């Protein structure tokens, strides 16, 4: 593979494209509601109407509006149809010749689409994720080519200058992480892509892996070149079979095309990628647990330092980034770090994908520039609640995050602002709640999740989450007293301050943030004390801010 060959593939692919394309989403969401059959019917309708010479029906990645799936769109006219069934297929093909259809039309200019800024999801819903040619025709692997024309330290400097921060949740500066691994003495190094997305209600990374598997691989290859690694692993949870299938196919295609393997773009750079499949443990999204799992060990976290950058997979320097982080890299290489740094806010650059779920009208995936307010996302892109009830709170960051009350919805989405109001950016889950949702029950749900998913290694997380869940249950069932509420708050502090890894340290967040903003709901559930208790002697504060 060389640059000419890459361009040749792209031009052959573009030349072969038919003037009109009917695109049908084939990713998990739409597939679950029958899009495979829809695509089949679309193809036969095109054939039956004798339009094959100028129209083609193709399977594409997720256009984002999952609540309207299966979604079909026609191009170049840009019409979008939702809740499409196989019966609608013929009608949709007929619209190309100006006829009407009973398929549900979706306004392509509504804020859900118009207000998005797509970098990571730029090709999602437009290209066929199962064909490398389709990705190459959309400038795919041009970023890798560009990277290989530079020195590794120049790329690290570029990524640093772009201001990109880790999209897995914590927001660690990506460039700094790359620089640390790059500065470790030469020798065996690894790159790992964390695709163990596990937050309830989060499916951004699944979609990126399904819609643009090559983009993830390209990002990893650029990272590997920058830090001096020759072997990569994509760790994907077993619950994402389609992502695994598409990544596997993508690795095969890229290797065959000479974009992975040895002698990439006729340089000495070599990079191989393998998939590792998770076995259903949420904690394996934590980097040290993930690394243990890749090594075939029990997936439990270990204390840091040493950080993986210094001693990771098989005790070698290891760069571990999230799927979305890697998928952002090719665009930064193609368009330059200044372009990327120009998007977003002072400390949070670029865009972030959110999976908008819960009591929201337009559920699905949105990619917005950092600094967009929560209100814009929920009310404009999301269209508010489905049945017009009042939005009560928005939960971000999953079981590690917090509930943000409706009166703080004007908070801009950036790492610092969300942290200040007791939540986190997290990996991108965004659950909208209306006035029928009761916050102590929300907190109990997340605590049950954490108790189930605690690996059991350290005591505060293993037992603390179970006791917290017990106290929350007692509270929700109106059996708790003021004393129990005090115990609950103390225990939140213990689990937060003393747990070994991020899972435990952040497990109390849903409780603490709902206590902070919806204390009245907790108070209302309290029962009178059965007997007088001695004065409290603990120095642990009973506040949650």
């Amino acid at each position, binding site marked *: 593979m060389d640059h000419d060959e890459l361009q040749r593939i792209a031009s052959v692919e573009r030349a072969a494209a038919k003037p009109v394309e009917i695109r049908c989403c084939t990713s998990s969401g739409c597939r679950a509601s029958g899009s495979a059959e829809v695509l089949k019917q679309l193809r036969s309708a095109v054939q039956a109407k004798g339009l094959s010479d100028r129209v083609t029906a193709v399977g594409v990645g997720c256009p984002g509006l999952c609540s309207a799936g299966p979604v079909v769109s026609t191009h170049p006219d840009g019409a979008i149809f939702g809740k499409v069934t196989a019966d609608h297929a013929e009608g949709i093909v007929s619209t190309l010749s100006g006829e009407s259809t009973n398929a549900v039309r979706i306004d392509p200019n509504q804020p859900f689409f118009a207000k998005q800024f797509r970098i990571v999801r730029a090709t999602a819903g437009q290209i066929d994720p199962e064909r490398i040619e389709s990705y190459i025709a959309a400038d795919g692997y041009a970023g890798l080519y560009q990277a290989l024309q530079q020195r590794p330290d120049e790329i690290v400097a570029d990524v640093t200058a772009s201001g990109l921060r880790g999209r897995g949740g914590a927001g660690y500066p990506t460039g700094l992480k790359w620089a640390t691994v790059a500065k470790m003495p030469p020798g065996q190094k690894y790159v790992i892509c964390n695709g163990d997305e596990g937050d309830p209600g989060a499916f951004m990374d699944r979609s990126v892996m399904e819609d643009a598997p090559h983009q993830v691989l390209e990002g990893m290859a650029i990272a590997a070149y920058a830090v001096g690694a020759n072997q990569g692993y994509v760790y994907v949870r077993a619950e994402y079979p389609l992502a695994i299938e598409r990544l596997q196919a993508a690795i095969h295609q890229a290797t065959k095309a000479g974009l992975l393997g040895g002698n990439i773009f006729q340089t000495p750079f070599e990079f191989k990628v393998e998939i590792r499949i998770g076995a259903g443990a949420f904690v394996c999204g934590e980097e040290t647990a993930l690394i243990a799992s890749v090594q075939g060990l029990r997936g439990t976290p270990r204390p840091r330092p040493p950080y993986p950058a210094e001693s990771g997979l098989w005790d070698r320097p290891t760069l571990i980034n999230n799927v979305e982080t890697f998928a952002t890299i090719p665009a930064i290489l193609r368009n330059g770090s200044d372009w990327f740094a120009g998007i977003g806010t002072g400390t949070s650059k670029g865009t972030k994908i959110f999976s908008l779920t819960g009591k929201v009208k337009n559920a699905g995936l949105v990619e917005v520039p950092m600094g967009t307010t929560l209100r814009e996302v929920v009310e404009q892109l999301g269209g508010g609640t489905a049945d017009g009830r009042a939005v009560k709170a928005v939960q971000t960051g999953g079981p590690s995050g917090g509930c943000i009350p409706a009166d703080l919805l004007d908070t801009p989405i950036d790492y610092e602002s969300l942290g200040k109001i007791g939540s986190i950016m997290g990996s991108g889950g965004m659950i909208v709640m209306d006035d029928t949702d009761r916050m102590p029950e929300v907190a109990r749900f997340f605590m049950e999740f954490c*108790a189930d998913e*605690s690996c*059991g290694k*350290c*005591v*505060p997380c293993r*037992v603390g989450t*179970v006791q917290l869940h*017990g106290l929350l249950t007692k509270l929700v069932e109106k059996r708790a007293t003021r004393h129990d509420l005090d115990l609950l708050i103390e225990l939140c502090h213990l689990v937060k301050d*003393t747990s070994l890894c991020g899972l435990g340290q952040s497990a109390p967040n849903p409780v603490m943030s709902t206590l902070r903003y919806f204390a009245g709901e907790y108070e209302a559930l309290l029962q009178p004390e059965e007997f007088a208790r001695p004065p409290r002697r603990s120095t642990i504060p009973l506040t949650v801010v």
Partner: protein
Amino acid sequence: MAVVTLTIDDKPVSARAGESVLAAAREAGIRIPTLCHLDGVSEAAACRLCLVQVEGRGRLQAACVTETAEGMIVRTQTDTLREYRRMILELLFTEGNHVCAVCVANGNCELQSLAAEQGMDHVRYPYLNPARTVDVSHKQYAIDHNRCILCTRCVRTCDEIEGAHTWDVAGRGTLSHIVADMGQPWGDSVTCTSCGKCVQACPTGALFRQGSTVAEMTRDREKLADLVTARRDKKWTV
């Protein structure tokens, strides 16, 4: 060899570079409570009892895995740390089925002594009363999971000192439990050498010699560390 000086509980302390805060404190006669730490094997940093406050670091640090550094200021006995230690012990007592009065390790139990030492005189959370099993299939020893606190000292001892790796952990969260080999009865284990090192390592009455009754199970833990030193330095203590 490089040496660093630091302050632990207002006392100036010297330490070899790379030494842990726990080791430095011990050498200086400052006691930091531990449960999963065992001399001679690697650290798990799992019990969280040795958490200390290090000036300039936002999070509490586990003394067993925190390297000493020049000028470091460490506090091991703040009110909050003491309270957290009591709470962690409370949690451990609620998790298993710890009935000292009928336990082989009564009077020789690290969990029991720590509770007494740390002033954990009552438990404020409900007991979880889990249904756990007792495995007496081994010829000489037995494991009573009711008394296990999942410190993994046996796992590390078996793996790192004996080299058999008979023990490991299965399950997740409070359902975690110690298993022999692939989860078969201890007596059927093909890797177990019956050396008894795990029995010496256990801090509670979970692993014990068959035939011992209440309060009869004593341990000789120093032997484990002595073995490690002997192998490494070719130095035998007898």
